[in-house]
């Protein structure tokens, strides 16, 4: 793998780059595509529902499916921990987080959306980069106790301007904690372009300053993302410490449902990005290998649509949030004043 430059296995049309050998077997790649299609279908459905006022604010993954899915595929959810930001839906699902719970969280019903106890995954949170020190602490703790497992944490290139990012990388370097920092460079932080965040050629170049490797990968190339991440996971598992991966991709949709990119985005950029759509690329690759066809595409999309429909129906049947839940899980035991406030709220 080249130290410098953007690692790629497939060119944008889905053909293998000269000299590239795919390390993944076709069934595994198909499974990856299945997650990507589910993610894309969910984003379209949720956008439509949001436009009808039937869904809360959310941030779509559109354009970044290979980046999220390819990286998540390199981990072992049974032992490895996922520390998310908020734009990584297929990774949550791949860790076993039920889609219905994701929907409940987005609809403001996080009590029903609690992460099942057997999943090694932390909640999404929106204070940018604040999850990174948690991820380092978690990895460091596993290391101290000789527990198995690697930690992956996701964040955007915008978030990597926060002090929390730099402090986390530094600490991870010093401790040699088993962690993969997965930076998704989707070119935008709301309206702020990538060039305003950093004067560095690559965000991954910063890793040198923290004493561990940085890798740059074409984030729209499922196979390349997988390979680069797998190498970082293996390093961490061998006890060789952290890696910073910069996955170069493009946010092909709005920042979130309150955003209007036409105010700041050149439509040409978006068009160019659409021509590098990660789903089309991997579909073309599989088609070339005789693993994909129009019928298959239809079938996979129908299955995804059904899965989403089922989750939406199930979400509607979930218990509604109860006022008393405002006071649940504040402490193991409420203070006397909180208990009094709870009685006031409930009219007791």
């Amino acid at each position, binding site marked *: 793998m080249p130290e410098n430059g953007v690692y790629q296995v497939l060119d944008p049309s889905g053909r293998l780059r000269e000299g590239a050998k795919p390390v993944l077997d076709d069934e595994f790649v198909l499974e990856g595509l299945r997650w990507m299609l589910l993610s894309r279908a969910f984003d379209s459905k949720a956008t439509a529902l949001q436009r009808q006022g039937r869904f809360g604010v959310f941030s779509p993954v559109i354009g970044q499916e290979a980046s999220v899915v390819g990286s998540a595929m390199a981990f072992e959810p049974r032992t490895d921990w996922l520390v998310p930001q908020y734009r990584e839906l297929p990774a949550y699902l791949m860790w076993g987080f039920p889609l219905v719970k994701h929907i409940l969280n987005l609809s403001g019903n996080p009590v029903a959306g609690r992460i099942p106890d057997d999943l090694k995954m932390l909640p999404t949170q929106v204070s940018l980069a604040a999850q990174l020190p948690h991820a380092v602490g978690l990895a460091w703790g596993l290391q101290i106790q000789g527990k198995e497992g690697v930690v992956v944490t996701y964040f955007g290139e915008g978030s990597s301007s926060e002090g929390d990012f730099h402090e986390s990388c530094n600490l991870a370097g010093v401790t040699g904690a088993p962690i993969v920092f997965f930076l998704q460079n989707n070119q935008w932080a709301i309206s702020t372009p990538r060039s*305003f965040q950093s004067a560095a050629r690559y965000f991954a170049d910063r890793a040198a300053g923290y004493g561990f490797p940085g890798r740059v990968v074409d984030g729209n190339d499922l196979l390349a993302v997988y390979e680069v991440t797998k190498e970082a996971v293996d390093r961490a598992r061998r006890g060789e410490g952290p890696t910073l991966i910069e996955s170069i991709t493009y946010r092909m949709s709005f920042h979130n449902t309150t955003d209007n990119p036409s*105010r700041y985005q050149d439509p040409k950029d978006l068009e160019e990005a659409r021509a590098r759509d990660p789903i089309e690329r991997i579909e073309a690759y599989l088609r070339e290998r005789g693993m994909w066809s129009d019928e298959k595409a239809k079938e996979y999309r129908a299955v995804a649509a059904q899965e989403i429909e089922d989750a939406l129906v199930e979400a509607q049947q979930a218990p509604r949030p109860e006022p008393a839940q405002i006071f649940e899980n504040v402490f193991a035991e409420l203070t006397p*004043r909180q208990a009094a406030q709870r009685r006031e709220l409930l009219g007791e």
Partner: protein
Amino acid sequence: MAQLTIIEAIRAAILHEMEEDERVMILGLDVGRLGGVFRTTDGLIEKFGRKRVFDTPLAEASIIGSSIGLAISGLIPVAEIQFLGFTHQAFHQLGQQLGRYRYRSRGRFPLQVTVRAPMGGGTKTPEFHPDAIEAQFVQSPAIKVVMPSNPYDAKGMLIEAIRDPDPVLFIEPERLYRKGRAEVPDEAYTVPFGKARVAREGEHITLIGWSAAVEVCEHAAAKLAEEGISAEVLDLRSLVPLDIESMVASVVKTGRCVVVHEAPLSAGFGAEVVATLQEEAFYSLDAPIARVASYDTPYPPATMENLWLPSSARVVNAARKTVNA
């Protein structure tokens, strides 16, 4: 005179000050091409260019910290933090650095810096965005904390803030940004800090609030009027400096008081108001002063925020109890 929303009034204030004084610059997340996530700075980059309207990297501590250096260099920064909840990333630079420079440098480096940020709930924003943390800044002396509740005050107080020789945290009521218009003079004017505003006159009880809570008090006062209770609504407008005189005058007149704020109850700024009133107006009080605030829990999920935030119904209840005490 034009009928402006709070957003438009804020934009008018910034525009005026940038035209008037070329040292004034704005910096923050998405303030340029996008015009801010609320469009407060819409059109300013086209007019003044990227040097004076700067989209910063995504890092609040350096937005505030560099504003200190920009001010020392001779500029007048007006920094925007996208949501007040994210001033926490910059808390040290704001409370402990910006708020101490004049003192630490023995007057050599006073800092003419304004920090703007929207605050408050009721709009179903995600965690952190709505947190009402104003009292935390009051505990960092030497930074002014001002909180307009209407378009007229928004423009006048922002111009006052930008011209103030000392640092000002200018907290904007997000829920009211586009809710209603009011007459705002076209020309520049200032609304001095430390002067509370009587938003509604009354005889029987004083409701004290600031920022969007003023609107809650006004609704409550209207309901109380139907029951024959005449409530005075006092909009504090600034917490630092605090207009103790107006608070005392109103309570001396009515003899009763309810303080309303969006921050959780314990150690909210309401505690300061109550303590001050019992020091200054104890013998005029006919009943204990009540507080209506959010509950002492983390900000709840969006579906439940309206149960948690102080509602006019809760204010009415508290006022009734106080009047009948």
